């Protein structure tokens, strides 16, 4: 599963850290660090974290799309 957090938008409310602690963590008081490719087993937790983010900074891929891996 692919995840990206817009860290310009992120203000360190840390809701995601409570909801998916294996995927999101704080480095110090407010710098967010996260796993951009967490195990699919955490999917529900990650989706909850994305929904709960007060500034909606978390983007989770929802496509089953494998394009882009093709090379010339």
């Amino acid at each position, binding site marked *: 599963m692919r995840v990206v957090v817009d860290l310009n938008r992120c203000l360190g409310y840390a809701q995601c850290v409570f909801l998916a602690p294996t995927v999101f963590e704080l480095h110090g008081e407010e*710098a*967010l660090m996260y*796993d951009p490719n967490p195990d699919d087993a955490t999917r529900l937790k990650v989706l909850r974290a994305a929904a709960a983010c007060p500034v909606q900074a978390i983007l989770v891929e929802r496509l089953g799309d494998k394009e882009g891996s093709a090379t010339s």
Partner: protein
Amino acid sequence: MNASTKEKVADLVATFKSTGRIVIVGASLAGLRAAEALRKEGFTGKLTIIGDEPEEPYDRPPLSKQVLKGWVPADHTKLPRARQVDAEWRLGVAATGLDRVNKQVRLANGEQVPFDRLLIATGTRAREWPNKKEAALEGVFTIRTSNDAARLQKALAAKPSRVLVIGAGFVGSEVASVCRELGLPVTVVERASAPLVGALGGVIGAIAAEMQRDHGVDLRTGIGVKSLEGDGKGHVRRARLSDDSVVECDVVLKSLGSIRNTEWLQGAGIAAGFWGVGCDAGCRAFDINGVVTDSIFVVGDIARFPYVLYEYQFLVLEHWDNAVLGAQVAAHNMVSLEADRWPHLPLPGFWSGQFGVNIKSVGVCSFGNEIVFTQGSVKERRFAAAYGRRGRIVAAVTFNHAKWLEHYGAQIERSAPFPPPPAGYDRPPELKPVPAEFPDPHVTTSLPTVILTGHDPTERGAEFQARVH
């Protein structure tokens, strides 16, 4: 416009959207988000994305943090897709030329890819160490691509006796921070007076320097690296500094800033060079004479555009959200007529996590010449500071104080007075602006590469001149 002309124009736009050919050169954050935005705009024609790296688009900021720390593998930062882009991906092959007259992009394998509209999103690369022999030593790294990060992570995991970081910009400082978290001895050598001086000025730089030293970094400023020396097996073992001191180390990270990937546009008649690619605030590229083009657009780290808030000066914003927001504007304008075009007017912003502190900024700090601490405590490394120029607020920086950034962003957007009125919370005892201590911008860093020729208006124009190295 009469009704029938209007109809014809609308037909043309519809036809372009369904049968046009758009080529995006650059398959990173800006290129991918532009492709998605084009589809969202209703473009159903042929879309080709060209990228020199073999990987599909991935996110770079985690490379110098989560990846180096060993938490996330380097190939695990691929960007989530916001929507299907249904494009032809040409990855692992660089664009090497642009033929504006015939509207074709030339690839490294000799192929020509035709386009009706082109988006340039080739970004930047890491600046190389000038001595090629020294740069080729085993144990000398750079960090820009996921491959770079994978190699450096492996070297750090092998517990080197000391890491030398050359250059204390954001990337160098973040890597030094990770080294300390991993318990590795690290020396940081920076030519300027302190870390982060170019982006944030000397006052904040001094705080960043303290942070590094408090975390056990051997930080040496106002000094350069003269040479790198290897052992008999070609592995780097020490660096000689400009004060003739020697640092014993077996991993070296060169973080010397970035070079804009514009070489492939040489001779294409576009305003491209070491400064990036000149364009208007609607992402339309300028030709070499500074006249706007209609079919070539530019976005991301290399786009140099006039910025309303900063006296219409041409700025390059090497920031994550500049790529994301610029991609949406460029895509929209590529399929819209003049009256519907959008301007790209982001409030610039960036972040950096280092030494347990979240550093964030809005506005363009280096546009200011004064700084004032407005909230929090420098000693606790939890504060906000505003940058001013001619009595107006132009930027702000926060250390572990991000929730207040919006407050300053709103003031910057309306050019509020500087020093700003005290915030309603967490005020320091006094608000006293001091010089922000940015390096002198008049120091020459590059030679001109464009000359003017011709006298008659019909033949007057600019010409590209390759620099002699």
